[in-house]
C-alpha cells in the first residue's frame, strides 16, 4: 500500500487502476471500515418499521410522518436489508474477504509444508533470550529436543541447533473462520433462491392445502416453481389458547396448542402443533406463527335470504386482541351489504372508546357499522378481504346518524328500511399457519459451527517459536536459547525459553546471564497485587 501514492501520480491504465482498487479493497483497513459501515447501516432497520416484517406499521408511519416519508421512501429505509446501499456494503465486504483470504490460504498451505525456520543469527535480539555455559556433562541438544517434543512443538534439528514451532493451527483456524463466513452467506442465498414461506389464516375446523391459491401470503425464491409445491393439507381440528389470569403479567400468553390433522399423499395423521414445535411434512415445516378471532355471523339480505353464514376473520390490533375486520355480503339483494368494525373479546366501552381489556373471550362483542349499495359486477379481480372499498357504497343511517350496533353472542341486529339483518352466532379462533422450505439451512448452520470452531482455534492458540543453539567461543561452550510469540497476548514465553535452556544445560534453575524483560514483567504483576 505504501507504493500506491507513487503509482497513482501518472495516469493509470485500466489494469493498474483495477489492481489498485483491488489492493485497497482487500486491505485490512478497508475490511475494518466496511465492518463499521455494515454495523451502522443495519441500525435504521431496527428503528424505522420494515415492510418485510410489519407492512401495516410502515403504512401507519408513512401517514404519520409525511415529511420523513419523502426522504425515507426513495432511500429504501423501509426495506433496509434489501436496499442497494446495504447490499453494496455486504457484497463489498465479502469481495474484500475473498480477496483477502485466497492469497492467505495459498501462503498458509505453503507454510504448513515447510519446517520451522532456521535458528536466527542473533538470538539475543529476540523478545526473550537466555544463555548459559555448557559443562561437558550437559545433556545437550538431545535433551532439548525431548523437552520440545514433550511440549508438542514441531521440531527441526540442524547441526548445532534446534528450531521449534507450535501453534500453526491458529492461522488454519482463522482461515477456516473467514471461509465459513462466505458459506454462511452462500447458505442464506440458497435458501432465499430455492426456498419459500407461505402462510394462511385457518379458522378452527378448516384447513389449508399447500398450494399457491390457498396462501394469504407467499414469498418464494426466484427458482421455486410456485405451481408445483408439495401437495399436502393441514386441518386445524382445534386450537386451545390460554392467557395469564393472575395478577402478574396478566394477559400474557401461556399456552398455544393446535391439534391438526395432516393429510399427506392419502395418509392422515394427527399432530400437536405448538410454538417451538413445528410439524414436519415432506421436508417442510409448518409453524404456528399468529392467532386471533373469527366471528361467526349470519347475514340476511333485504329479501330475507341468507347472504352469508360462517366465520369471518378479524385481525388483532393490540395485545388485548381488539380486532378489526370487514364482513362482506356481495350477494345480498336487492342491495349488497358490507359491515366494518371490531371484534372485542372482552369488550368495554369507556372514555377511550370501545376496546378489549383482556385477550381471552370473556365478553365478546361486535362493534359494527353497515354499508349498502347496488350490486357490483363481477370483475374477477382479487379483493383484499380485510379492507373495505367503499366506492359505490353508502353508509347505513339511522335517524340521521351513522347506524352503529354492538351485538353480543346470540344477538342480532336488523338494519333499518328492511335492508336485512346481521346475527352474531358465536366466535372461534384462527391460527396463522406457515409452511416454509429453507433448503440451505443445513449449510448455514454447519458453516456457523465451522466458523465457531475456527474462531476458537484462531483466538486461543498461541503460536510460538523457540530456538536453541550450542556456541563454541573463547570462553568455552555455551547454550543460547531464544523465543518469539507470533500473536500478542501470550504468556509463558520466558518460562519456555528458560525451560529449554535448563533442559540442555541439565540444570533445573540455570543462572541465565541475560534475562531482560522478564523480571520487569514480574515486578509489574506483583505491583498490581499489592
Amino acid at each position: 500500500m505504501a507504493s500506491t501514492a507513487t503509482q497513482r501520480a501518472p495516469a493509470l491504465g485500466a489494469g493498474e487502476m483495477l489492481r489498485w482498487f483491488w489492493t485497497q479493497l482487500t486491505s485490512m483497513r478497508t475490511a475494518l471500515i466496511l465492518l463499521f459501515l455494515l454495523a451502522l447501516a443495519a441500525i435504521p432497520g431496527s428503528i424505522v418499521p420494515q415492510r418485510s416484517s410489519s407492512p401495516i406499521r410502515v403504512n401507519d408511519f408513512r401517514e404519520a410522518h409525511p415529511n420523513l416519508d419523502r426522504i425515507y421512501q426513495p432511500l429504501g429505509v423501509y426495506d433496509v436489508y434489501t436496499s442497494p446501499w446495504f447490499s453494496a456494503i455486504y457484497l463489498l465486504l465479502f469481495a474484500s474477504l475473498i480477496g483477502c483470504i485466497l492469497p492467505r490460504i495459498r501462503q498458509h498451505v505453503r507454510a504448513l509444508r515447510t519446517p520451522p525456520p532456521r535458528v536466527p543469527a542473533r538470538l539475543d535480539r529476540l523478545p526473550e533470550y537466555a544463555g548459559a555455559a555448557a559443562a561437558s556433562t550437559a545433556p545437550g541438544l538431545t535433551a532439548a529436543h525431548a523437552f520440545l517434543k514433550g511440549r508438542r512443538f514441531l521440531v527441526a534439528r540442524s547441526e548445532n541447533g534446534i528450531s521449534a514451532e507450535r501453534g500453526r493451527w491458529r492461522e488454519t483456524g482463522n482461515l477456516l473462520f473467514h471461509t465459513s463466513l462466505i458459506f454462511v452467506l452462500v447458505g442464506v442465498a440458497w435458501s432465499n433462491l430455492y426456498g419459500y414461506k407461505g402462510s394462511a389464516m385457518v379458522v378452527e375446523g378448516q384447513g389449508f392445502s399447500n398450494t399457491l391459491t390457498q396462501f394469504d401470503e407467499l414469498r418464494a425464491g426466484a427458482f421455486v416453481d410456485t405451481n408445483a409445491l408439495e401437495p399436502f393439507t393441514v386441518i386445524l381440528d382445534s386450537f386451545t389458547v390460554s392467557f395469564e389470569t393472575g395478577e402478574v403479567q396478566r394477559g400474557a400468553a401461556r399456552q398455544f396448542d393446535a391439534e391438526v390433522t395432516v393429510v399427506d399423499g392419502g395418509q392422515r395423521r394427527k399432530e400437536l402443533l405448538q410454538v417451538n414445535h413445528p410439524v414436519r411434512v415432506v421436508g417442510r415445516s409448518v409453524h404456528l406463527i399468529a392467532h386471533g378471532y373469527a366471528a361467526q355471523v349470519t347475514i340476511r339480505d333485504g329479501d330475507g335470504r341468507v347472504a352469508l353464514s360462517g366465520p369471518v376473520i378479524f385481525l388483532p390490533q393490540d395485545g388485548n386482541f381488539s380486532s378489526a375486520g370487514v364482513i362482506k355480503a356481495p350477494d345480498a339483494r336487492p342491495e349488497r351489504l358490507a359491515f366494518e368494525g371490531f371484534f372485542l373479546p372482552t369488550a368495554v366501552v369507556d372514555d377511550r372508546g370501545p376496546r378489549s381489556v383482556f385477550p381471552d373471550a370473556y365478553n365478546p362483542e361486535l362493534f359494527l357499522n353497515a354499508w349498502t349499495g347496488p350490486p357490483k359486477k363481477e370483475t374477477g379481480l382479487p379483493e383484499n378481504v380485510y379492507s373495505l372499498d367503499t366506492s359505490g357504497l353508502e353508509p347505513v343511517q339511522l335517524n340521521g346518524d351513522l347506524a352503529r350496533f354492538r351485538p353480543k353472542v346470540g344477538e342480532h341486529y336488523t338494519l333499518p328500511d328492511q335492508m336485512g339483518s346481521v346475527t352474531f352466532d358465536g366466535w372461534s379462533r384462527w391460527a396463522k399457519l406457515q409452511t416454509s422450505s429453507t433448503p440451505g439451512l443445513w449449510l448455514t448452520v454447519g458453516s456457523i459451527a465451522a466458523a465457531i470452531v475456527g474462531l476458537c482455534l484462531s483466538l486461543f492458540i498461541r503460536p510460538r517459536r523457540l530456538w536453541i543453539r550450542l556456541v563454541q567461543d573463547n570462553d568455552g561452550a555455551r547454550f543460547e536459547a531464544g523465543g518469539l510469540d507470533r500473536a500478542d497476548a501470550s504468556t509463558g514465553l520466558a518460562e519456555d525459553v528458560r525451560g529449554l535452556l535448563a533442559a540442555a544445560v541439565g540444570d533445573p534453575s540455570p543462572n541465565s546471564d541475560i534475562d531482560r524483560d522478564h523480571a520487569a514483567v514480574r515486578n509489574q504483576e506483583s505491583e498490581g497485587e499489592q
Partner: protein
Amino acid sequence: MTTEVLSNLAMVTAAVVYLLAVVAHAAEWASLRGVPVLTSEQTETYRTTLARSNYWGRLGVGLTMIAAASHVVGVVSRGIAAERAPWGNMYEFVTTLMLFIVLLYLILLRKAHLRWLGLLVNLLLTLGMGLAVTVLYVAVAPLVPALHSVWFIIHIVAASIAGAAFNVGGLATIVGLLKARSERRGTAQVGYLARLPSLERLDTIAYRAHAFGFPLWTFAVAAGAIWAEFAWGRFWGWDPKETWSLVTWVIYAGYLHARATAGWKGRRAAIIALIGLVSFWFNFIGVNLLLNGLHSYAGI
C-alpha cells in the same frame, strides 16, 4: 418466608453490599491519591499509606464475595420459586447477567490479580442490581410459550457469559484508557493508576476477556437464530433484537481486526471495544424498552 421473598431479599442485600464494596474500593484508590511510587527510601508513613490502601482493597474484595454469595442465593431461589430457569423477563436477565459478571470477576481475581477492576466492577454491579430491584422488578410468573425451548436456555446462558466477558473486558479497557491518560498528563508516577500493571498488560487482559466472549457471543446469536427457526419458522428476520445482536457482533469483530491493523492498535481499538459495550447494553435493555419487535415479549 416464601422462596420468592427470600430471592427478593437476597437480591436487595447483594445490591446494597455491592454498594459498600464500591465505597471500600473508592477508599482504596483515594488513599493513594498523590502518593508517588517509591522503590527505595520508603518511610514508615509511606508504608502505612500503602497498607491502608491495601486494607481497603481487601475489604472491598471481601464485601464483593459476600454480595456474590447473596446474589447466587437470589438467582437460584428465584428459579426455584418460578419452577423453571430464572430467565423469563428483563429482571431475571439483568440479575443473571450481573451474576455471571461477578463470578467471572472473582475467578479472574484469583487467576489474574484483577483487584484493580474492583471499583468499576462493583459500580456496574451496584447500578445493574439497583436498577433490577427498583425499576425492572416483576413478581414470579410462568414463561410465555415462545420461551419454552432448550435453545432458548442455551441462548441465554451463552449470551450472559459472553456479556459478562464483554463487560469485564470493557471495564479493563476503561481502566487502561484512564491509565493512558494519566501517563499522557505526566501524572504516571503518583496515585493508584501508577501502581497498576503496564498498559500492555491491561490491554492483554482486556483483549483476552473479549476474545473469550466473542466466540460465545457468536454461538449465542446462532443459538438464538436456531430458536427463532423453531419458534417463528424463520432463521433470521431482522427483528430489532436480532439486528442489534449482529451489530454488536460486527463491532467486536471490528475490534479484533483493529488490534491487528497498524494505526488502529491501542487507543482506537480500545474505543471500538467500548462502542461494542454500548451496543451490547443497548441491545440488552434499550431494544426491549424503546424498539418494537418480537423480543418485547418479556415485558419488564
